[in-house]
């Protein structure tokens, strides 16, 4: 099984504004860091290096969507690499939101989920809290827990 994760962030200002310039400059280096990270499987890419991921969920929304071999691989990239420094500056670029902005779930190896499914998982987390079908680092379910539960089997159909 591979671990899918999506996170969304609400920009404080338009993409091409000076407020966002440092973030925009960090997109390409951080993407390259992810691509080279141990356990990285796949990510939804923008048109060119350093471009935002394109989507239909609103111009103010930045989306990161990726697949990883394990929880630890994703954790080490997010919190144990130069990515952490970018994450720490998030308040300069993004609004604080009270509701969940990131979710994970397990997918069969070789399966690339659609962005729509990822957004549904986020809604699921908002609606039901952490479950084997939609969870977070803080309330994590490992792949065996997720696999034997009927809810997860149904979601894979």
């Amino acid at each position, binding site marked *: 099984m591979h671990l899918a994760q999506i996170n969304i962030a609400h920009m404080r200002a338009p993409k091409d504004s000076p407020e966002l310039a440092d973030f925009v400059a960090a997109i390409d280096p951080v993407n390259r860091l992810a691509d080279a990270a141990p356990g990285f499987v796949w990510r939804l890419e923008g048109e060119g290096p350093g471009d935002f991921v394109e989507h239909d969920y609103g111009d103010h929304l930045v989306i990161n969507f990726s697949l990883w071999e394990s929880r630890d691989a994703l954790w*080490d990239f*997010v*919190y*144990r*690499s*130069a990515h*952490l*420094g970018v*994450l*720490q500056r998030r308040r300069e670029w993004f609004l*604080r939101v009270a509701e969940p902005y990131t979710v994970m779930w397990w997918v069969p190896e070789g399966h690339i989920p659609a962005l729509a499914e990822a957004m549904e998982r986020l809604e699921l987390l908002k609606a039901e809290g952490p479950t084997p079908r939609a969870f977070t680092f*803080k309330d994590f379910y490992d792949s065996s827990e997720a696999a034997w539960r009927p809810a997860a089997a149904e979601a894979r159909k």
Partner: protein
Amino acid sequence: MSSDDLGTVAALQDPVRRAVYDYVASQGHEVGRNEAAEAVGVQRTLAAFHLDKLVEVGLLESGFKRLTDRSGPGSGRPAKVYRRAPGEWQVNVPARDYRTMARALAEAVDLLGGDEQAERAARRAGAGLAAPGEDLGEVLRRRGYEPYEEDGRLRLRNCPFHLLAEEHPLLVCSMNLALCQGMLEGLGEEGATARLDPRPGECCVAFSKEHL
């Protein structure tokens, strides 16, 4: 405090065993019996006895590894090697539980969006941990960071806030950086800088002393 933790920690009472443990824990690599014996200055069999005892109580982990580049017939069997076990043990007498409260407080800070205040508080706390003129490495050692030098920088092998950092990595790593910057202020070390340079399995902060 669980009685198991006390039993585990009590296994370190023997001075030779303590030295063996300290040596293995301070290395960034797996340690063989010969290496541990030489480092501590005891016979190989005595070092092996203590190493295996430390594995038995759970403070070290062991495995087998070829320590030479030779392979194939005649290269000998792989050597037994040791490294620090990932768990943590805590002994307080009388019983104290600061973790539960720290976890609740961290959650509250997150919910309140109070990370900037928390960082300022950590910076003040850090400044109080070091006196002017003290040695940075010594201060860090005392606080359990296990500093070591690499490429002219001081890196930290151990995260003293591991459990909290796993639960609230953004908050705790930011506070830890602020704490370390506070320590530099306390020391009056104006040439050195503390910055984030996280690596898997280590503390998120590294010190640069390039301007000294």
